[in-house]
């Protein structure tokens, strides 16, 4: 599936929704499992517009459609290319680190999706169209204190904040260069530097 081009998969999604309708499948959980793009500043990105369009089209043909969204995965979030240098005990972030930010654990994705799928079939009226899995919501200051608790060095993590205006200007200047599969990182207040983003992109 990974090798398919977007346009091919768009056609496949249409075939899938058609088949779901004709097979009288009650509940469809489309492939979201990423950023809750409906409320982001980047909801007009073509990738997210296609996702939203697919959701709307599916709702016309299938009795219950449920989108399940996550924050950045907890197990992947706090690593060096995103600004979290735990070796040097320095985190470079956007803002002052006093805004609550959610992360989602691998374990919760599996458990929550399974329960949501069962519940959406048994009690469709009790399940909203959009569900967001948020395992933990704290500020970066609080996350840092959590890391400090288990730091072998006994040191406190230093937090270096990048002004929001500077981060936004960086985004505007560089967004056309960003690989689409990295966009989900961008709409979180995680990235302090687009140089970091390029390192991530090269590693993927």
């Amino acid at each position, binding site marked *: 599936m990974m090798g398919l*081009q977007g346009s091919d*998969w768009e056609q496949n999604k249409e075939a899938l929704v058609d*088949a779901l309708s004709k097979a009288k*499948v009650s509940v469809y959980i489309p492939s979201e499992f990423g950023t809750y793009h409906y409320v982001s500043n980047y909801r007009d990105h073509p990738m997210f517009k296609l996702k939203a369009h697919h959701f709307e089209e599916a709702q016309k043909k299938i009795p219950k459609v449920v989108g399940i969204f996550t924050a950045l995965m907890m197990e992947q979030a706090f690593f060096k290319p995103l600004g979290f240098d735990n070796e040097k005990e320095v985190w470079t972030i956007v803002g002052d680190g006093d805004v609550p930010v959610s992360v989602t654990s691998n374990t919760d994705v599996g458990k929550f999706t399974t329960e949501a799928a*069962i519940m959406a079939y048994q009690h469709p009226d009790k399940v909203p169209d959009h569900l967001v899995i948020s395992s933990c919501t704290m500020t970066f200051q609080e996350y840092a204190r959590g890391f400090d608790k288990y730091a072998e060095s006994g040191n406190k993590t230093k937090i270096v904040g990048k002004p929001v205006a500077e981060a936004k200007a960086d985004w505007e200047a560089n967004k056309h260069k960003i*690989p689409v599969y990295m966009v989900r990182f961008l709409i979180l207040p995680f990235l302090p530097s687009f140089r970091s983003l390029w390192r991530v992109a090269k590693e993927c």
Partner: protein
Amino acid sequence: MSSADAPVIAIVGANGYIGKLVVPELFNALKEKRIKELRILTRKASPSLQATAAENGATVHEVVYSDSASLQKALAGVNVLISMVSFDMAYSRYDGSTGIRLGTE
């Protein structure tokens, strides 16, 4: 909950990042009879996928994703479909109707 209320669930994208997180929980639910049946839809059923599915009481169904009839056959009797295909990865090569370069691959 009676087993009569337990849904038949089908999934696509079982081998992806999200799929590997969700499938073990679906296997658990199947063992607990909170799911009546679990079908794994795939383009090509590898022996390892077949074996893992069989060990856990699930079944594997080869489908052609572009063919609605093929999908309908695999979905007959299914109550819930979970798609976990990595759409943004697939989309990363897309350079079509929007005219915007979206990916670097």
